[in-house]
Structure formats: structure tokens, C-alpha cells
């Protein structure tokens, strides 16, 4: 698995428009997983996620001819997903409340998560309470490519508040630029930076615990989220 995301160039877009099936298959192959993963930050309902990703692909098929190339192809596809998933998640939520006859206090689409992963780590004068110590990794890249380390990182991602997880997935996992990510998610640059940093702090913490032998991660259970 390469650490660098593929860019789809203008030539690739022309192939899609010309009906090149191999190109479309490659696009789906590359983006289907990341799209499902992002959709999961908007809803826990598996059928909502599936429907959102499905609709995204149909919208891509229909819309590729009017795609103007203002945003990179990947961003364009992700933005379609975010629109569809938001709509579907709100609809499913309403449906759920009607059925249950209750009105929840959750607020979908909230961008400030109130998370404070650095809280409690400092004295009043701004010094560390417990000093961070180096990890001494001979080859960090190789370490992070092991299944065990990946499981640690994925568990940390899953544990993040949703708004944070979205930013982390698009910025650091998918490798998009901040402007792209702000456009896709409709958040400000300041907000995006704060959420990204909190997410990284959580991942650093999880890795710290793991690398010091504090916790062995279970190789990730295949995420079969049952509807609650």
C-alpha cells in the first residue's frame, strides 16, 4: 500500500466521460472504502451508509459530464458523498424519532467537538506534568505499516468525535489539503486546524501507550456495526 494518494488527472476524467469501464472500476476500487469510512462519521446506520455511497456513485456516473474540474476529482466525489450522507442521516434520524416518539438532543453536523485530549497534561505554569519521552523507532514507517500498529491507529480514529474524525480521515489518511477539506466539509480553516490537531494528539497518545507496551491492540475486528 503506497503512502501517497493517487491523483486522477484530466486524462483520467476524459476516459471516464468516454465510458472507459476500466477507469470507472479503478475509481470505485480506490474510493469506495474511504467513502464508506467517511460516511460512517455521519451515521451509524449501515443501511444509510450503504445507500449514501451507492447514491454517490450514481451521482458520479450522471454528473461526470458536467464536472468542471474546479476541484480535484477526488474532492468532488467526497463532496457529493457528504451532501448525500448528511441528507440521508437527517432523514433516518427523523424517521427514528418518529418511530420512537422521542426527540434526541444530539446535533448532527456540529463542528466544534469540545474534545480536549491535551487537558490535564500541564501544570498551572504550562510545564508538562509527565514529560513525553522519545519512542526510539529505528524505522517508523515500517513500524506503522504493521497490522498491529494499524489496528492501534484505527481504534484511535474510531474513538474520535465525529467532526474530528472527518477532518483526520480527509487530511491525514487521504492526504488532502486543508482548503479542499474545508470545502468538502463546509468548515472554517481555524476549525479544521483545531480538529486535526486534536485528532493527531489522540493518535499520538494511542501510539505512545502501544509502543511502551501498555496495551496490545487486537487486530481490528471487522467492523460489523449493529444498529443500536
Amino acid at each position, binding site marked *: 500500500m503506497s503512502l501517497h494518494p493517487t491523483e486522477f488527472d484530466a486524462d483520467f476524467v476524459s476516459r471516464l466521460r468516454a465510458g472507459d469501464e476500466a477507469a470507472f472500476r479503478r475509481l470505485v476500487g480506490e474510493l469506495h472504502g474511504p467513502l464508506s469510512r467517511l460516511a460512517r462519521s455521519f451515521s451509524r446506520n449501515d443501511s444509510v451508509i450503504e445507500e449514501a455511497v451507492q447514491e454517490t*456513485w450514481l451521482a458520479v456516473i450522471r454528473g461526470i459530464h458536467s464536472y468542471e474540474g474546479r476541484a480535484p476529482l477526488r474532492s468532488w466525489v467526497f463532496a457529493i458523498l457528504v451532501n448525500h450522507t448528511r441528507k440521508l442521516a437527517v432523514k433516518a434520524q427523523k424517521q427514528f424519532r418518529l418511530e420512537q416518539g422521542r426527540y434526541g438532543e444530539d446535533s448532527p453536523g456540529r463542528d466544534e467537538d469540545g474534545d480536549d485530549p491535551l487537558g490535564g497534561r500541564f501544570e498551572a505554569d504550562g510545564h508538562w506534568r509527565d514529560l513525553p519521552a522519545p519512542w526510539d523507532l529505528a524505522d517508523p514507517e515500517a513500524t506503522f505499516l504493521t497490522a498491529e500498529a494499524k489496528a492501534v491507529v484505527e481504534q484511535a480514529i474510531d474513538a474520535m468525535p465525529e467532526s474530528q474524525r472527518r477532518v483526520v480521515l480527509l487530511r*491525514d489518511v487521504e492526504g488532502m489539503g486543508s482548503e479542499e477539506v474545508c470545502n468538502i466539509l463546509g468548515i472554517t480553516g481555524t476549525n479544521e*486546524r483545531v480538529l486535526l490537531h486534536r485528532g493527531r494528539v489522540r493518535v499520538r497518545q494511542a501510539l505512545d501507550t502501544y509502543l511502551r507496551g501498555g496495551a496490545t491492540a487486537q487486530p481490528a475486528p471487522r467492523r460489523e456495526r449493529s444498529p443500536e
Partner: protein
Amino acid sequence: MNCEHVAHAASDYIDRKLGLRGRFGVWMHLLACSACKAYVEQVRLAKLALRAVRGTAEPAEPANMDALMASFRAESKKRPSDS
């Protein structure tokens, strides 16, 4: 600039999103503080570790790939002149 400031600015420092003054402040602090130096390096490594989970743990293709390909084919036929 103290350790707490540096810890909060770590991502902006790594991503080069700090202004000249902020960047210099962090840099000066890191020269003198090995704990923060370790911390900032670990945030950088966390970013690297996140990149490593790209494309994992997810099915590469939807279950109904065939149906999707059929839609793609049908749409392409509707626009034979497009290239």
C-alpha cells in the same frame, strides 16, 4: 512560549501553518526542551501513522459492483457523442 503552548501549536508547526513569530518561538523552545522536542516529533509520526491506514479495513469495491458497472455502461450509451 511554554510547553503547553508548544503542545497546542505542534500540528500547525509541522504543517507550516504558523506565522514567522510563532514558528521562531516554537523553534527556540524546541532547542531547549527535549520533552517538547519528543512530543512534536511524535505528533509528526502520528501523522505518518495515519497515512499508513489509508485503504485498509474496507472492502475495495461495493457488493453490487456489477449493478454499478451496468449503470455506468447505460449512461455512457446515452452520450455517444461525448468524448
